[in-house]
């Protein structure tokens, strides 16, 4: 790589503010006051955290507004954040990566990209819900492709997507116990009499 490397492990300098995330943040702050809860506009993974109630409005605005045009829901991921020390909130996080194919990307920003910088037009929108009652409104009607991603997030992490009816599992069998990507999940010893022996170290 042509640019000087940063020392191992250090995040990218905060000065590199991502233009797309910055624009999305300004738009949300102006049009939907009170929805944005936290944000990080620079670095290698900029994100905006919105409230659960404002999620659908925020995603619809980002999709339809001509200044962002984040029309494609690229990926929905769930992340488990159990309480690791007393006083921590046990939460589940759902991350929506939205991508634009219509928006011409900022050439000036592209020019100063480095190995640590984000250089593509996507925005990460996060929501956090309590781990005991993880209910997130479905965005399937806004992004049709979110259907399977939501099913997978329910299947592996147990996030309940409301407003879309019954959410079937997608990868695991219908009668599979629990949600494997939760940090407190324990591999069952058998499934319908078939022994499950995890290899050493897993």
């Amino acid at each position, binding site marked *: 790589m042509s640019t000087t490397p940063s020392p*191992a*492990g250090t995040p990218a300098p905060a000065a590199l503010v991502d233009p797309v995330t910055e624009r999305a943040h300004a738009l949300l702050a102006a049009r939907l006051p009170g929805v944005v809860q936290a944000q990080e506009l620079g670095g*290698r*993974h900029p994100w905006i955290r919105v409230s659960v109630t404002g999620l659908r409005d925020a995603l619809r605005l980002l999709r339809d507004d001509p200044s962002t045009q984040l029309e494609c829901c690229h990926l929905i991921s769930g992340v488990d954040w159990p309480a690791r020390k007393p006083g921590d909130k046990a939460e589940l996080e759902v*991350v929506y*990566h939205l991508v634009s194919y219509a928006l011409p990307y900022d050439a000036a920003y592209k020019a100063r990209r480095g190995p640590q910088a984000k250089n593509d037009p996507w925005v990460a929108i996060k929501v956090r819900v309590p781990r005991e009652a993880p209910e997130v409104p479905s965005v399937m009607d806004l992004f*049709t492709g979110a259907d*399977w991603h939501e099913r997978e997030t329910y299947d592996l992490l147990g996030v309940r997507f409301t407003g879309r009816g019954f959410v079937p*599992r997608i990868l695991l069998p219908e009668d599979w116990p629990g949600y*494997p990507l939760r940090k407190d999940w324990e591999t069952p010893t058998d499934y319908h009499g078939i022994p499950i022996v995890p290899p050493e170290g897993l």
Partner: protein
Amino acid sequence: MSEPTRPTIPAARPPSLVSGGEPHHASVTPVGGVAEVHEQQPLVGQDLRTEELVFNMGPQHPATHGVLRVVIKSDGEFVQGLQPHIGNLHRCCEKIGESVPYYQWIPYVDRMDYLAAMCNEHIACMAVEKAAGIEVPERAEYCRVIVAEVQRILSHLFAMGVYGLDLGAFTPFLHQFREREKGLDLLDHISGGRLLYHYVRIGGVKRDFTQEWLDELEAFLAAVEQRLPEYNTLLLSNHIFQQRTAGVGVIDRSACVRWGVTGPALRAAGVDFDVRRDAPYGVYDRFEFAVPHGHSGIAGVVGDCFQRHWVRTQEVEQSLRIVRQALKQMPQGPVMGKVPKSLKPVAGEVYVRGENPRGELAVYMVTQGEDKAWRARCRGPSFSNIAVITETAKGTLLADLVAAIGSLDIVLGEVDR
């Protein structure tokens, strides 16, 4: 495929076999009730009872390219609705990513899209490198591009050949597999594996190219370049192939964007977007290549099966260009950077996108300062690409459903991960 010669069917039985030796002209002429039958229209609803039939296609159906089960509701030859069922090949790639150290996860990533293992490794390694701030030597970046583009050529050769097979053309499949075998040998000689390589490592690549290998690569490129027009003659300009694919399984831009369809299918819908050019990673910004995308100047409709196939043929040519440029530009130097024995990236996140032969592979990795990832989420392009079939195939013929699934070129290993 040449036009099959039709066997000549005798118009009537030979006179010698007809009793009395007299030709029976009377039996040929429609008489009596025949004309009346034609007047009893419509037959549907009166004489013939029709009903909707729900049946399974797969999981062992050859045209589903793996263990995909599609439940089809059909009315005669027409698809009324369908629901794909996936998960038969679920191998917990993301759970394993959280359970094993970063180094040990990379070979598992190969198994997602087993026809594009080099591309998977490339992107997964980039995610870890970005999280840990590891610098990759320049020569290694070129090595990665070369093997990834060779892999793309092989994957597209496979896709094009098997697509012909789906539509009943056996010959192109055998021809394209001849070149594909040479390419697999090539990657075998550099990595030691035929399909799953683990050649791209965190911090660089495993081995440097030898002169013998580069000669072999040159021969492979020349062979593909020479044969490509032949393949195109066999399929693209084949009348039967055109009839089976043109205007069939149209996925337009709006459907692609709504469903998150990426890769050749997105470009066939007229979207001029390729991650390698528009959000370049590695050293892709140093090469000149075109991004073929569907348009009205070629046969078919923008976004149909024919144009998806056409995009793949053009991408093979562009990949050849990229490999040739990379070979010219490649500097001398080490192929492995300085990587700590115990990799513990600080808490943070990365999101890395890359262009796989089937679409955009993305890795969203959450790190927590441990030697394992907190979350290793992979976006398999086939996962989103196959979901669109529920919308596309509605109302089409059953035979066109096979054409549509084949043209999306899915790999079930990546759908289920």
